[in-house]
């Protein structure tokens, strides 16, 4: 079975990137490269919409399968090229399409080594899309790791501050997590009763997936250990307290568009992995299930939310502030996953759906926030909050959309953040009332740090000194239409999902139901 749509969607950015790097030469090549690269992300966006819309919700299950069985035809590791989407991955593919396009548009003003920049940015999009549609564990792992190289280059070459340090830290954290995951994958594969790498069952292809097989398997390596291997890899990436320390550095030093991709979709690979693998595989395993540790997960999630929130309030760098707020918000994802409860009977799909939706909404909201910080920084050349103030008068558009991102982040009704968080709280409160009660304060903290930042940066009076010089302040301009295209692209889904959440929640629900079984 080879539908082809997913293969094209995944590899289009990479293919264009390689062609452009090789063939775009000459006088105006930088400008050509920008146009072609942005064109590629737009086409990818259209394709991702086709994937999302084309998914038949009545049929459910895995759709648009690309299957080539004999990819690695070796007994020691029988891996196949298996792509497909279900309700869980389709919205994330759409999210990647949106953010990939926004990131490319937001990179319009990159001047340094344009050719390489867009090469890495497009390869990054391919890697992320590949993670969401791979249904073979080894393939999943390859895409998951492949994203490292582009990220490393993008942060290290185009970053600011201490780019090489941050890039290296990011790579070391993720690589270590990845090593754990690889061991976990091999441990699952060598289990005699499993001996497959298919992440899901696909009856029409005769594929019995790991979730079904693991239920009856006797493990060589203890199931609890395998669970931990995967959990560590995803906890680093999510990131979860106390493994989050790479994130603020990477975000602060990365160029704007890369921060958008990092916060918007790269962190979601971890959330997706938690749902698909840690939740999907370990529900009925012998000797150990996810239910045994759901309580701990809820506690760590609550700590992440609160710790992240408190640290965020103290930040004086706008970008760092938003980076830390991601730690807090991704803690909610963890809390939603923890709503699986201490037994199958307790499982709250509302919480799990909330976790999935939170990934989608956080992607758009934080992406927008980073974009707005980038626009503001381009003009003021500082992100230091005490140096700013009164920018409202000079750049109202930027302020408005910053405010939208902020309101989305703190969970204002009508915006998508509210829907996700309320679902998570509803789901997890019935299971872990204490942890949820504590984590709910995260929303208060979010209101605090967001509004306080917006108030200090955009409203009030301009600080007399030290602040930005009169010369710079007088010449501040608002965002122009080129800047606004990616902004609108990210703001639109925030409103759409906020007002009409079932666009994506129906889809996620199909996916979650299949994962929970």
């Amino acid at each position, binding site marked *: 079975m080879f539908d082809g749509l997913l293969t094209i969607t995944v590899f289009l950015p990479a293919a264009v990137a390689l062609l452009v790097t090789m063939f775009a030469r000459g006088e105006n090549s930088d400008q050509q490269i920008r146009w072609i690269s942005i064109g590629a992300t737009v086409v990818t966006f259209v394709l991702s919409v086709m994937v999302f819309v084309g998914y038949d919700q009545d049929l459910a299950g895995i759709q648009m399968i690309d299957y080539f069985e004999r990819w*690695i035809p070796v007994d020691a590791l029988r891996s196949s090229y298996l792509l497909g989407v279900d309700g869980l991955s389709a919205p994330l593919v759409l999210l990647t399409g949106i953010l990939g396009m926004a990131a490319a548009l937001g990179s319009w003003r990159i001047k340094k080594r344009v050719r390489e920049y867009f090469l890495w940015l497009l390869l990054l999009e391919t890697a992320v899309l590949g993670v969401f549609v791979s249904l073979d564990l080894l393939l999943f792992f*390859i895409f998951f790791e492949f994203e490292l190289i582009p990220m490393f280059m993008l942060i290290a070459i185009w970053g600011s501050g201490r780019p090489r340090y941050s890039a290296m830290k990011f790579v070391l954290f993720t690589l270590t997590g990845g090593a754990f995951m690889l061991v976990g994958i091999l441990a699952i594969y060598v289990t005699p009763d499993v001996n497959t790498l298919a992440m899901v069952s696909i009856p029409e292809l005769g594929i019995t997936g790991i979730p079904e097989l693991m239920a009856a398997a006797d493990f060589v390596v203890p199931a609890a250990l395998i669970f931990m291997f995967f959990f560590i890899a995803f906890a680093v990436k999510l990131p979860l307290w106390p493994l989050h320390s790479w994130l603020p550095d990477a975000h602060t030093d990365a160029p704007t568009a890369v921060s958008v991709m990092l916060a918007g979709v790269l962190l979601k690979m971890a959330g997706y992995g938690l749902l698909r693998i840690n939740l999907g595989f370990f529900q009925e395993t012998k000797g150990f299930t996810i239910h045994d540790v759901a309580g701990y997960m809820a506690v760590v999630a609550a700590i992440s939310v609160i710790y992240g929130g408190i640290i965020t309030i103290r930040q004086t760098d706008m970008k760092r502030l938003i980076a830390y707020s991601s730690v807090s918000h991704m803690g909610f994802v963890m809390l939603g996953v923890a709503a699986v409860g201490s037994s199958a009977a307790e499982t709250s799909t509302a919480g799990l759906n909330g976790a999935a939706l939170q990934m989608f909404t956080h992607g758009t909201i934080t992406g927008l926030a980073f974009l707005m910080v980038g626009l503001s920084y381009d003009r003021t050349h500082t992100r230091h909050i005490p140096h700013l103030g009164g920018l409202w008068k000079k750049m109202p558009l930027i302020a408005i959309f910053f405010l939208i991102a902020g309101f989305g982040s703190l969970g204002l009704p009508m915006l998508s953040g509210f829907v996700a968080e309320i679902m998570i709280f509803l789901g997890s409160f019935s299971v872990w009332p204490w942890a949820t009660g504590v984590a709910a304060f995260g929303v208060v903290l979010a209101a605090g740090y967001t509004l306080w930042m917006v108030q200090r940066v955009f409203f009030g009076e301009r600080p007399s000194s030290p602040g930005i010089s009169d010369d710079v302040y007088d010449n501040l301009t608002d965002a122009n239409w080129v800047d606004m295209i990616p902004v609108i692209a990210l703001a639109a889904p925030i409103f759409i999902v906020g007002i009409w959440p079932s666009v994506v929640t129906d889809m996620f629900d199909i996916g979650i139901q299949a994962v929970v079984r």
Partner: protein
Amino acid sequence: MTAQDFWVLSPEIAMAVLALVVISVDLVTRSMAKVSTVAFVGLAVPVILTLNLWNGWFGDPATGPALFDTFEADRFSLFFKFILLTVTAGTILASAKYIASDRMRDYGGEFVSLVLLSVTGMMILVSATELITIYVALELTALPVVALSAIHRSKQGVEAGTKFFVLSAISSAFLLYGFAYIYGFTGSTNLHVIMERLAVLPTQSGVPFGSYAVLLSVIMIVAGFGFKMAVVPWQMWVPDVYQGAPTPVAAFISVASKAAAFAVIMRIMYVAFGNANLMQDWSGLFAILAAVTMTLGNTLALSQSNIKRLLGYSTIAQAGYILVGLASVPVNQVGATSAGSGPQGVMYYLAGYAFTNLAVFFVVIAITSRTNDDSIEGLNGLLKRSPLLAGLLVFGLLSLLGMPPTVGFMAKVIVFGAALNANLTWLAIIGVVNTVIAAYYYLRVIRAIVFEDAVDESKFSADKPILVAAGLAAIGAGVFGIAPFIMLDLAEKALSIIPAMITG
């Protein structure tokens, strides 16, 4: 010799003839470009003859035993002959500029024909099924390499050549001892007969390999080939020779020599010592060698400041990973439903490694011939000075490091998976740890290329032939990484020849 013998030996004969033709051309022309062209185009003949043996185009040449059961052109050997021929083609392309240089002009023809002769030896080696033939082929392989290492007559070159010659002689002595013991014990030098005899000869319980004579001979044989494979503790020559010998020669040794040695050791182990209980014993031996080789190769590479020496240690470490595949003999080999993926992994790894390492070495040749600086600092800012070469080198290094989705990653995952299947969990863990150690020094080189600022900012590009060679090698590595099934299927076909691999 019968007509069939000629068919079976045709690729080797063509190679030897080509070597003579090249020497003759060198006599009549002073243009090294012509010599290279003749050699490169002439390679088509052995390639076609090898393809013919694999596919049976011209009639159906029987590929069974030839020359009184001493030589077999089975698919296993043909698989390696393809690799060897590819490496030769690459080496000739990459050294085209080098042999035309002033100090090499007088020996250019000799250089090419020595390479061709050495490859002839290797091609016989991978086909040989009899101990004396193996030994003779091995000597034919080694002696031209000695001359090649010292062809500069520079102090370093002569030192490299002498070192290689002395150690090669010692290792041959070990090998001969090993062969003598096994002949004394079984009364035959034919690998198939040895297997049959070993199966019926009385064994002592509690002794590895059933008897001390066999144990001793296996250790001697492994020691003899360990030198060729550059396996610890027979690796001392590697860094010196790599640094001292001309870089095209180093590239050639690092890939061709290693592939041939692995091929013949696989054949000896799986055919002569292919009994189930013997396999468990030599599996353990290789597992230990693998662990030591990987660890030592990688740790020693950490402190290197010369790129050629670093690559020398890196090839030692790579040999260790390949040994992991060799050691991965599944429990219950005979009659098991799965033949185990170890041998397949070894062949895939070797093929992928051949392309990757060639690409890396060729790029290093291209760079050092321009900059005359083979320290790692010499690579600083390469990305700005020569983006294409830098890109190829980074790709090659990432593949050697084993970064997904390169061929290096696939190969490592397959051999480590095979090790897990063979209950060698500890070995797989050591392998993974080693990969992390190796990341440090490969990334150090990449950092120099991508981030550091060059002292000399002038741009440069490589010569066409070497660029083509490096590019093709990199494309090969890329394709086999993205589509591993191509090479793995070929390896599977090739392996159905070895008796122990036939599934029950």
